[in-house]
């Protein structure tokens, strides 16, 4: 199985399209960092314009490495799923399109085993992509901008987390984001298993994510209480939950606290359920499928 996984990873990382995602993330992160290095103050001023008249806001201190990383993740984690689909949407359908799938299945390995290996190759690619993003957005931002307290702007409140209380939250958030992105990988993996060419699963994954993200973000009662709690895109934002901190009666934040930990665990459970459903469905369908190419 390990040899098979190595073989799959070799095939994945030999394709130039695999590196598109790494290049795209590097370009976006660099552009955001450059913009915030030059106009970070103006950006924070825009965000906090409603309280600018009431409070003296230390803009220079706010635009530190931790805040830059949060801003990047906020902008980027909506789009990274699209990049994940580039590889996982291609991993089975690409072989079908190239005519190598039948050849692959002549090996003395069960279809289930083969699909599990291919899925793990997708997971590894996703994790490497996420690590790359974490390195660029967190490590490089901290090196460039230094560290200080993290100020998170929510729709109705501003949350400040002490510098010493931030780093573990990023580790937790990236861990959560890994699960969220694996859901996307498993969705496009599932679509890839029922398709004969790779464009279809990639475009379908992107379309599904766009539609579901819009539904998740719209605040319309008919969706809020019916389908929204079940959409994986609603739960994919759970990484942010680690940056929502509890406060005491005087409004002072409690170090090390997370305001709604059960909601985060619930989101994780929903995301794991989706991974099992998508991957299980792919294996189930693929085992019963006539492979003609």
């Amino acid at each position, binding site marked *: 199985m390990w040899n098979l996984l190595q073989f799959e990873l070799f095939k994945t990382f030999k394709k130039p399209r695999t590196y598109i995602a790494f290049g795209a993330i590097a370009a976006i992160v660099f552009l955001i960092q450059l913009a915030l290095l030059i106009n970070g103050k103006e950006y924070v001023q825009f965000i906090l314009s409603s*309280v600018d008249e009431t409070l003296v806001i230390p803009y220079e201190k706010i635009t530190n490495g931790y805040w830059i990383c949060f801003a990047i993740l906020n902008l980027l984690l*909506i789009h990274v799923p699209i990049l994940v689909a580039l590889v996982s949407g291609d991993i089975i359908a690409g072989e079908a399109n190239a005519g190598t799938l039948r050849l692959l299945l002549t090996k003395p390995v069960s279809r289930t085993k083969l699909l599990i290996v291919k899925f793990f190759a997708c997971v590894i690619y996703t994790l490497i992509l996420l690590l790359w993003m974490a390195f660029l957005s967190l490590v490089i931002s901290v090196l460039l901008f230094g560290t200080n307290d993290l100020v998170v702007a929510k*729709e109705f*409140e501003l949350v400040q987390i002490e510098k010493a209380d931030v780093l573990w939250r990023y580790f937790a958030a990236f861990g959560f984001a890994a699960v969220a992105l694996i859901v996307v990988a498993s969705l496009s993996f599932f679509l890839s298993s029922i398709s004969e060419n790779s464009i279809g699963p990639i475009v379908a994954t992107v379309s599904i994510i766009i539609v579901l993200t819009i539904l998740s973000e719209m*605040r319309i009662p008919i969706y809020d209480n019916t389908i929204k709690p079940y959409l994986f895109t609603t739960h994919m934002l*759970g990484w942010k*939950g680690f940056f929502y901190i509890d406060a005491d009666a005087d409004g002072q934040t409690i170090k090390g606290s997370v305001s709604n930990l059960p909601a985060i665990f619930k989101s994780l459970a929903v995301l794991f359920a989706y991974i099992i459903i998508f991957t299980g469905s792919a294996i189930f369908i693929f085992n019963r499928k006539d492979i003609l190419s």
Partner: protein
Amino acid sequence: MKAFSILFLFILLVPVAFSQDANALLEKVRNKLSLVNNYEADAIMKTNVSFLKVPQATVKVYFKKPDKIMIRNEKGISFVPKGAVSINLNNIISGNNFTVIDAGHMTINNNQVKILKLLPADENNNVILSTIFIDEKNAVIVKAKTTTKDNGTFELDMKYGKFIEYGLADNVVFTFNTKDYKMPKGFTFDYDNAAQKSDGVKNNDRQGKIEIKYLSYKINKGVSDEIFK
């Protein structure tokens, strides 16, 4: 006729005497505060604003005559209200360009205090009215309310301890008006119900409070102008 003349004189002179009393008391407070040319203080600041969730901060407070004040958090970030300059009592009672009205007495924390109302003479002054509550025995202001044209009403509550001889408080609670905070929808991509107002968020509560607990003062040791830039 004689009795009527005495009564008339009494009615005419009593307010003048009260006013002189009030001015003398204010002068006494002012003299005490004038002992401090500058200070650097270590303090703990607690912020209580409906839309802010912030940690308790260790800050340094710098003051330099006549009206420079700066609150700095060297280790982290602190949101300081813009009217925090009122934390300096000199700003409220400096100059003589106002009319002092004696408004009687009241009890605060079981201590009887004198109430003085300061009405600025200049119509264009941003301050409409200041009311100060003075502990006559110690010649210190224990409470001050300032109503401004632009920023509503500020309130100061002070408790004194070791530095009462300089008129410097150990504990100051500054109450101020806030405006609503709201981010554009779709900008934050909030998770869970964070987008809805949580229990702790009472955006209709338009008053904020900061409490500064002074731990130590370095008085008249000199403070550089660079600090206030």
